[in-house]
């Protein structure tokens, strides 16, 4: 529902800009949470593409920067809540990695709001939808990334 509202808003306010967002989701919590959203038929914004990793700790600053370099308008990294990590402390390492990524993104002169770290559990299907909707809305407000040289034309 929230997705639909933001979408209509988007169409009137920011004509034509459809953000390209890469979302890294850990296998055990966030990817499973996205599946739960499906089972519950939660409706949310489609303007993101998921890449599954086993743990949020697998995602390096390099991955995030590569996505931005290739023109992604935003990058989301999503893992398990603290204490829930399938690999005990992988998500804590994800935080450390993400802090480094943030510093690099700032150094590059990009808006750090283009990248986000979130925790979504396997049960939180609704939350997954909310996280995506919120992030899509934020990136839509920020507009195309300055590195997005080839805005994708929708067929």
């Amino acid at each position, binding site marked *: 529902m929230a997705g639909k509202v933001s979408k209509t808003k988007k169409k009137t306010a920011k004509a034509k800009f459809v953000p*390209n967002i890469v979302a890294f989701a850990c296998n055990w919590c966030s990817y499973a949470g996205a599946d739960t959203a*499906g089972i519950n038929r939660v409706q949310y914004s489609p303007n993101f*593409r998921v890449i599954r*990793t*086993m*743990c949020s700790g697998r*995602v390096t600053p390099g991955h995030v920067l590569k996505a931005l370099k290739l023109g992604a308008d935003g990058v989301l990294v999503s893992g398990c809540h603290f204490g829930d990590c399938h*690999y*005990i402390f992988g998500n804590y390492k994800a935080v450390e990695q993400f802090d480094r990524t943030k510093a690099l993104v700032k150094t590059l002169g990009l808006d750090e709001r283009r990248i986000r770290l979130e925790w979504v559990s396997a049960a939180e299907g609704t*939350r997954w939808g909310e996280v995506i909707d919120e992030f899509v809305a934020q990136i839509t407000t920020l507009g195309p990334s300055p590195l997005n040289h080839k805005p994708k034309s929708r067929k």
Partner: protein
Amino acid sequence: MLDAGRHPNIEVLTNSELVWLDGRAGRFKATVRRNPRYVSEELCTGCGLCVEDCPVVVPNEFEVGMGARKAIYSPFAQAVPNTHIIDRQNCLNDDFLVCNNCVSSCDRNAINFDDTAKEITLDVGAVIVATGFDVYEASAIPSYGYGLYDNVLSNMELERVLNATGPTHGHIARPSDHKVPKTIAFIQCVGSRGEGKEAGCQYCSRFCCMNAVKDCLLVKQHEPDIEEMFVFYIDLRAAGKGFEEFYQRSREMPELTYVRGRPSKIMEDAETKDVIVYVENGETGEVSRLRVGMAVLSTGAVASASNPGLAEVLGLDLDENGFFEVETKYGSPLHTAKEGIYLCGCAAGVNDISDSVAQASGAAAESEKFADKLPDEEKKREVKEIDVSGQPRVGVFLCHCGINIAGVLDISSLKEHAETLPNVVCVEESLFLCSDEGQGLVQEKTVEHQLNRVVAAACTPRTHEPIFRDSCEQIGLNPYLFEMVNVRDQCSWVHSRVPEIATDKARDLLRMGVARARHLQPLYKNSIPIDRSVLVIGGGIAGMYAALELEAQGIRVYLVEKEDRLGGRLNTLTKVYPANLSASELARTMDKRVRASRIELMTATEIEGITGFVGNFDVSTSGGGFKVGAIVVATGADIYTPTGEFGYDKWENVITNQELEAILHEDRQIQSAAGGKTPATVVFIQCVGSRDPDKNAGCSRFCCPTTIKQAIRLREDGVNVAVLHRDMRTVGAKAEELYRQARALGVKFIRYTPERLPRVSGKGSRAEQVEILELALNRILTIATDYVVLAAGMVPDEQSTGALHEFLKIPRGADGFFMERHAKLGPVETTTEGVFLAGCVSGPKDIADSIAQGSAAAAKAAAIVSHDTVALEPTTCVVEPSLCRACGQCVEICQYHAPSLVQIAGGLQVAEINQALCKGCGTCASWCPTGAIVALHFTEDQIDSMMEALLTVEA
């Protein structure tokens, strides 16, 4: 749940009940009635189209009536099996006008209204009763108005309200007006610890205090603007590892007030629907009338309504509360009067999650003695492996999933797009790709087109990848060359209102999947040998139980005890509550059983070093070295030695529970100062060294029942007894009943607060009196006493815990005890694979809980050493030595101790990852500064290729 459902050796029979049991341990015949589901488990894919079409809406039991479900439904989102059931009571098909909507919506013809109950007979070796509990029906207490007033909820209802997947999506709203309440009152012990007519149960339900504490923290998290919360309680029973610390953290919330007192009644303001709570403050005596926006009743647990029927089938007795009777002669909480039938969880009384989990593993260990061993996995048919060295030849298979995918996504557009992608040589579609026909299509086309990569655009790899991998393997294609694209759960289902945009997304996802598939490499499962023996460290009750369980399963066991005799702390005890078992007799029996068994017993032996990893540990002891496959650590804990509290060092008659136990053990009489002419007086002081942030912040859990046990014994000898306490925490099995018995015997219980500690004074070498502020009277009471007994808690055994921490790398918590893998779900496991914990080494426990953990640890260890080899999942991390500069960062961050630095030629070092220990999370690969570590199946190439496929628009 999903793990159990998917396990090859577990057959889950839901919607079924045991109706008859014949035979004896090792050869039971169980008759099970499988009630009709009216939906075929085999045919149903759980797609949910029938649910959408069903016109009947009824209250949802899982949401405690707060949400709705249809007449055809899945009980909850992650239910196993992933299928539906028809509620015939509400279904319209039994009406004179047959609805049949579900039948016409199901493309798989899975719905069968002629389904009937079937009885099946199973040959089983043992039976485990794990039937849980029912929630106390709070409407039985009319003065609380549950069911009458809109804004009086039960704790179970609040659980659903707070849940993100619940009826309000985690938003706290008053049922009367859907507004966020500004104030909430939690009322404890509803239906528990009852007295009189509206009593409910007399026992303590154990989990409700922590449940309320947790809910207060969650409420604040969900609704930061909450103004006030109250918890009305009798004793706040935060008795469990880490519970007291958690409770104290909640006390730091300025919005939360704990009030000692049991409300007498609850009323409703008819206009505002506010809730009015009438309560007398037990500390000040003040009677107040409190208006809150919402009240939550902490309803307790009662015995499952199914217990009497099941008890009859099993031939077991129930106790006075309706729970299954435990056979206490073994001291174990798992045994019943019948051999081969075991209890766990709330079937035998109220337990919290971690104890239930430990008991479940323990019951499994007990049962294993009577269970048939499964034959070793059949050798897979040898098939010639498909050569993948050449160019990738990708086959793309598109699943319609009935109309779940095809009803939203434009499959022909996806097909067209797939055909344009590099290396794609065939594109096929199927109505249900996971069906036998669908899998047959995958295999047929793979052979026909000599495919060496297979991509399926269907549902989620989390449930269906194993099916596809199996099919690939059957025809000789390495299963790791299969890639799944999730276009249902994460696309068609969640963007069904925007089919065109959803198709765009699916096209992108498909392109990403094909790109990744082109970079997939075959991976092979390695197997490592397992040494089929177990080391048990510590010969106390937990260790002896673990060793005996393992030995009974025919496993070679080394039991190492540092003292010269077995029994540990059991040797210092007299009677063990609640069954009044003689501790020395229990110790003697266990000692005899151990010595009569084939256990390699090593007393007066110290562990000197342990190296290696799961399946292959090298142990050296003062009595020689040996190899084992798994280790159970059961070294126990120490009793806190008071450091001068209450004159412990000054006066000879100020002693600890332990010292009193020794006096009672030797059957010495407690004498009064007057030399036996008048009855003696003993004053107990609880929480000495416990619940004190400067000493041991935690609650030791066993001291309250210990004091009660001793108080009853003394009272029976005619001694006057007073117990000075902060909260009486009698939470274990039957402990509340003992507390009640002690009060009936005339033991005085007086509460003190940490701000106003009792004062002990005396003369010469003896303490003579105790002064305490009686809170309700607001007066100092002076009690002349002959003995002061300090209830000293438990602290870690520094020496052995410290040494084993070094050898085994098990982390220690803030309290100094070993940390479990998961506080709730892994109470006997550690982060070091193959190493398990039992008893007090992970935190204070009583005898029954220690025994349950001993059995549980045995089950876990047996699961490892009952195989000659273990197959290792190949999706691990490996090091490319030429890139490694031996910085050691991977060694530092890995929680599983998989990487280590090894010497290579030329005196150089490189990191090496032990494949047996690596779990494949890939964190080290992301951490490695030189990129020397490769996370197999999630390599840089594979991840990059997906991003490139998505973001690079090809000209």
